[in-house]
């Protein structure tokens, strides 16, 4: 608990005079603290080195996060965006960055807008995590897709976005296209293949070392015994440049569609300092719309592959394909919000490597109610149930099908 206090105090020690921002200065700062109570059941969590899909092991009081989201403006066209997250666990520094980048926003001279980001930032995937601190607006724990994005993906490079203002194309249609080139992030895929999909609210920071389950093949004398018992997802290993392209179409505030092709172009045989490079590719499709009755609908779909190691018998020694979808319905009423999400996820495997059986299949239900007393204080109640069948759990003599559940009450403070 001492560390929580240090984290909160350290974050609070940042200039309070700038709190909540004011328009006489060139920057905005948002602070957030989230904590509460929970009751959980299931396997010991992956965050403590086992296989559980959820974040917490113990019932009772829990400190979810503290964050600082800073946006500075330099001159008319340069923005700096940095996000610090503080956690009470042993996976990295107590406080560390999740994002840090510079954005150049030249003044538009026509209906075409250009934006250039350079630094470390989330790829444009999540439609849930739209608030300061990459906070999920709808639920406490993000969908399987966006939980994986939070665990293992960060674009460390540059992104160019070109967009057309809506009125230039007949009032309501807006188009935008992004292309990004990035280095690092080569181990991305390790956790997805070896641990599987998860549903939680933890975002990896740059210093984090995320534990792997005690897999047979990473034990001494086995095929991947160079692998540390943890993953450092944002390391550069092979010196290759990856890319993604993303397109978006928006029709007023009625419909949004985004589609991405992502390929980290990592060398699947590269390894350095106990971390392997995984060739991770996927296609992502996201859509959002408002249904009659002002019910918001968000859906995302991701399908891809991640492979590592040399090719044996026609497949890489770890050769997995993955597929996940979710549908979320949400409705806001003044300060209240009710949301429900269904996740489905799957991993299949092309290799026949012994003692490395990674396929899984599962689904999750998440129900959330939140109420904001003001802009600064909100509460949330969330029920989450995730049922998974995962082949590799047989190595630990536990049932390979399990349902894990969590109920939590969270106090959310914003400054």
């Amino acid at each position, binding site marked *: 608990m001492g560390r929580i206090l240090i984290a909160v105090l350290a974050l609070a020690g940042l200039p309070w005079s700038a709190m*909540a*921002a*004011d*328009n*006489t*200065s*060139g920057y*905005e700062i948002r602070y957030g603290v989230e904590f509460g109570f929970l009751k959980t059941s299931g396997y010991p969590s992956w965050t403590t080195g086992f296989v559980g899909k959820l974040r917490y092991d113990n019932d009772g009081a829990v400190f979810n996060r503290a964050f600082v*989201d800073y946006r500075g*403006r330099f001159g*008319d*066209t340069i*923005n700096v965006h940095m996000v610090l997250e503080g956690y009470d666990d042993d996976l990295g520094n107590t406080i560390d960055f999740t994002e840090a980048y510079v954005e150049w*926003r030249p*003044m*538009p*001279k*026509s*209906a075409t*807008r250009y934006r250039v980001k350079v630094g470390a930032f989330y790829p444009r995937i999540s439609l849930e995590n*739209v*608030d*300061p601190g990459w906070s999920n*607006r709808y639920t406490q724990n993000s969908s399987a897709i966006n939980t994986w994005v939070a665990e293992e993906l960060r674009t460390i490079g540059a992104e160019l976005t070109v*967009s057309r*203002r*809506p*009125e230039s194309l*007949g*009032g*309501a249609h807006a188009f935008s296209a992004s292309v990004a080139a990035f280095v690092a992030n080569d181990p991305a895929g390790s956790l997805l293949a070896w641990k599987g999909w998860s549903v939680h609210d933890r975002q990896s920071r740059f210093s984090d070392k995320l534990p792997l389950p005690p897999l047979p093949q990473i034990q001494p004398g086995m095929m991947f015994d160079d692998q540390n018992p943890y993953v450092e997802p944002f390391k550069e290993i092979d010196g290759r440049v990856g890319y993604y392209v993303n397109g978006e179409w*928006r*029709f*007023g*505030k*009625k419909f*949004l569609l985004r589609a991405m092709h992502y390929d980290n172009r990592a060398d699947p045989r590269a390894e350095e300092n106990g971390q392997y490079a995984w060739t991770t590719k996927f296609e992502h499709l996201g859509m*959002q719309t*408002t249904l009659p009755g*002002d*019910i*918001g*609908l*968000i859906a995302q779909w991701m399908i891809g592959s991640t492979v590592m190691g040399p090719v044996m018998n026609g497949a890489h020694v770890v050769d997995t394909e993955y597929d996940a979808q979710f549908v979320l319905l*949400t*409705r*806001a009423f003044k300060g209240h*919000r009710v949301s429900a999400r269904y996740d489905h996820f799957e991993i299949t495997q092309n290799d026949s490597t012994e003692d490395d059986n990674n396929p899984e299949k599962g689904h999750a239900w998440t129900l959330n109610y939140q109420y904001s007393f003001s802009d600064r204080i909100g509460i949330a109640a969330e029920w989450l149930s995730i049922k998974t069948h995962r082949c590799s759990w047989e190595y630990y003599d536990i049932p390979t099908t399990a349902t894990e559940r969590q109920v939590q009450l969270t106090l959310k403070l914003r400054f």
Partner: protein
Amino acid sequence: MLLLLVTQLWVGPVLAGMLHVRVVGSDAQPVPNVVVFVQQNGSANINAGKPAAAIMDQRDKQFAPHILVVQKGAAVSFPNSDVIAHHVYSFSKLNRFILPLYKGTLPDAVVFEHDGIVTLGCNIHDGMLAYIVVVDTDVFAKTNDDGRVELAVDDSASSYEVSIWSPRIRDAKGHLVQTLSGDAPGEMTFALEKKLRPAHIDRLESVAWDEY
């Protein structure tokens, strides 16, 4: 100017000097927030007064109002009621300007010397959108929730050219004109044939359309 005669209803001379304009959509529903302005031909005291000053505020990361109509030559001030900074720009050919709204001081008002439609954006918040409609007349207003507006006109004019404009209207690129010749103005209806574009919504919705 595009001349397009849609449906015109005469309800005889109603109130001398008052022109009643109604805009209805293709679904027969009233269309609110449509700019209506009148050119009075042959009137002795056209545009006599000094153009009235106007305000385009920024509130909750939205321009307020979404559509502002002013007379040519009017000075529009841009206060910022948000606690966050904005950076307003227009790239309209004849009324181009940039206004950083984070210096803590109210910038000088912008004087709009050319008539036409000025599209505003914020370079910090890409979702912000507003229009300033600069018209060469002092007879203008916007339709109410019933799609109606009442305009005081000079009944000595020989004819009235009544224009409507809205970013939602798809007929004739959003700009429709009807001319009334003759003595007393009355009531006229613009019945649109094409479906409207979706309205710009600036209230909180169930889903977020603009990322932080």
